[in-house]
């Protein structure tokens, strides 16, 4: 049976079990939209800006284990999508982006709405394709989904010229796919796993450092079993929150630039470090030289060999899928008669408790002015710690990571690698669509929310009952904080003037708006908002303008060179 390229593309999505496509139509994708119109299986979510389409597909993917799908037109459709694609790339999110392209005969002629989509996205995709014949569409889309979800996941772009989408070809969806140059490993090397177990069992001051790889690999169960079996302390990265229950006593919380004192000092002072699906990035271990001053053995499990020994030299590299490797590691541990040394471990825990006793996350609350940390504590209580929470980027993101105790994976959705302001609202849309009926909150700032505020319109169209928690301090808070600490209090362009009345703005889009000025009103407002199951409620919390995020390891410093709130 012959179909047009556009029909083939949509049939491929059906074959992949795609339920939702997030997109925005335009000239080069008209045939694809026509094919979409003529079927009922794949539903389309019309966003208001292509960046939001990609973030929404991203949120959809992060909150499930499915591949997110976005559809954009050529030229500006693609360039608008780039920020979203780079966001997904930096956090290894499985996604397929289908873009329209000008007709093949016009490529290279600076045609209307032409950009070199493959060229522009090359540095921020796992792979990309330009399809030059309708007969190649099915095989290419099959490959795209396979590459996006296997190995270290990532976004894959498929660029389809307009004439190709209107060209007829036979449709056969391949049942299997193989790429001769691509063989991601699943199981780690057995000898290395045994070596790792030996090191762990002999450790005096062990530490487990778990990242986003645990979430992506759906390995929370294995990680939790391992941590409990060994009795070791564990810390999660920003991307790994929820990979181990934050309310468990063995959890030291998040590490890194705004991590807890106990997590950072345990990282610095441990003698055996097990890194699981994490990549020792600059926001996590700060200054590499400072980190290397302490001698320790490092075991590193990662599916991507290039993540191993990139910034920090590793003693036992284990290349494999975190879930498989942890499973194998557990099997070796279970069969071993040896147990971790109880005395050494007790002494190590006593040290950690001393650090924990400093209560680095304490803050001075106020009756007069709303403290952002207080809002997040109340958000946690009111949602019983069981909401999906997305965030934008800045102080509010760090406070959410610090004060909302994520016990489950895929509940915390944020742009960790790229740090994309404007991510939170569209990502929350994708989360809500993937999880209808679930409680979805978007914690944001007045800077970030304005970077994709037009999506309130999408939320109205698709009746997405998000709860937007705006921590409005009238400053680009993180910029202001760095200017206070490192730039002599010169607040260059970090003050947000001429802000809209967010309550009225929410109402203008057909939603419920609230403005909260007093600490006493925080909890009642949250309760009222979350009780409105069918409405999007936009809560404008007027917060303390000068509050800073602590603890803080300043850029370029080591993990023990931390600034605590009390020191200022």
């Amino acid at each position, binding site marked *: 049976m012959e179909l047009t390229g556009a029909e083939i593309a949509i049939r491929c999505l059906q074959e992949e079990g795609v339920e939702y496509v997030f997109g925005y139509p335009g000239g080069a994708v008209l045939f694809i939209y026509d094919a979409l119109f003529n079927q009922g299986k794949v539903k389309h979510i019309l966003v208001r800006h292509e960046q939001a389409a990609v973030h929404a597909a991203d949120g959809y993917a992060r909150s499930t284990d499915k591949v997110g799908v976005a559809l954009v037109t050529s030229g500006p459709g693609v360039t608008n999508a780039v920020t979203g694609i780079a966001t997904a790339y930096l956090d290894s999110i499985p996604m397929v982006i289908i873009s329209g392209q000008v007709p093949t005969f016009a490529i290279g002629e600076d045609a209307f709405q032409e950009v070199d989509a493959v060229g522009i996205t090359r540095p921020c995709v796992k792979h990309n394709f330009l399809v030059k014949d309708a007969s190649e569409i099915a095989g290419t889309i099959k490959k795209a989904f396979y590459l996006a979800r296997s190995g270290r996941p990532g976004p894959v772009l498929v660029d389809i010229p307009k004439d190709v989408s209107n060209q007829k070809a036979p449709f056969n969806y391949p049942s299997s796919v193989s790429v001769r140059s691509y063989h991601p490993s699943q199981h780690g090397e057995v000898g290395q796993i045994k070596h790792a177990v030996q090191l762990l069992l002999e450790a005096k001051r062990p530490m487990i450092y778990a990242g986003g790889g645990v979430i992506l690999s759906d390995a929370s169960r294995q990680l939790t079993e391992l941590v409990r079996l060994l009795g070791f302390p564990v810390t999660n990265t920003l991307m790994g929150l929820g990979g181990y229950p934050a309310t468990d006593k063995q959890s030291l919380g998040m590490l890194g630039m705004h991590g807890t004192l106990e997590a950072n000092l345990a990282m610095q002072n441990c003698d055996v470090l097990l890194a699981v699906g994490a990549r020792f990035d600059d926001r996590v271990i700060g200054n590499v030289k400072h980190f290397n001053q302490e001698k320790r053995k490092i075991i590193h499990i990662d599916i991507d*060999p290039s993540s191993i020994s990139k910034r920090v030299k590793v003693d036992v590299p284990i290349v494999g899928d975190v879930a498989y490797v942890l499973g194998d590691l557990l099997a070796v541990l279970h069969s071993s008669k040896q147990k971790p040394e109880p005395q050494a471990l007790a002494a190590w825990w006593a040290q950690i408790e001393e650090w924990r006793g400093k209560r680095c996350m304490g803050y001075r609350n106020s009756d007069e002015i709303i403290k952002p940390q207080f809002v997040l504590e109340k958000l946690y209580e009111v949602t019983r710690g069981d909401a999906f929470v997305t965030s934008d980027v800045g102080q509010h993101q760090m406070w959410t990571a610090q004060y909302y105790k994520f016990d489950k994976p895929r509940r915390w959705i944020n742009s960790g690698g790229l740090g994309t302001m404007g991510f939170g609202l569209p990502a929350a849309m994708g989360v809500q669509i993937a999880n209808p009926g679930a409680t979805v909150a978007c914690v944001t700032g007045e800077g970030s929310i304005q970077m994709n505020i037009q999506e309130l319109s999408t939320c109205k169209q698709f009746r997405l009952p998000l709860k937007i928690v705006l921590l409005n301090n009238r400053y680009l808070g993180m910029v202001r904080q760095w200017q206070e600490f490192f730039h002599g209090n010169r607040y260059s362009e970090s003050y947000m003037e001429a802000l809209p009345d967010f309550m009225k703005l929410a109402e203008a889009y057909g939603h419920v708006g609230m403005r909260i000025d007093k600490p006493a009103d925080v909890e009642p407002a949250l309760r009222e908002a979350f009780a409105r199951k069918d409405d999007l409620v936009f809560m404008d919390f007027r917060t303390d303008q000068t509050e800073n995020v602590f603890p803080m390891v300043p850029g370029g410093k080591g993990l023990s060179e931390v600034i605590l709130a009390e020191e200022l």
Partner: protein
Amino acid sequence: MRHIISLLMENEAGALSRVAGLFSARGYNIESLTVAPTEDATLSRMTIVTSGSDDVIEQINKQLNKLIEVVAVMDLSEGEHLECELMLVKVQAVGEMREELVRMAEIFHGRIIDVSDKTYIIELTGAGSRLDSFLQAIDRSLILETVRTGASGIGQGDRILKL
């Protein structure tokens, strides 16, 4: 340290730019890069001459392997290998220099592949350092233009890069 890396990649449009883009995006050095199809028309073979610390070279190898279109990578510098480069030099050849340049070309095992009344084109192959020596050996003012391919490399004996 200088490394010479050989790789096989899919003979597809865009594969070269992925490799070149990787080097520029991650700030790695490229001294030279050559690429051409192999006897298997679906594959191209590339030779890259680069330099960096051991850590950087390890990352370069890993990052190259990560590119979907790269099928196999071998760091030739890790073992016995040969490398060879082709150079064409157009020189001014008039008067007594016509004889002198023929002699110099012979000494360096070069061939004169084109002759005009005022110029020669001399073809030389060999290690890059030998080509450099030739350029230093002749009067610099005689050189009209040079073109070099960059090194091609191959492992010796059992070191074979093939699918």
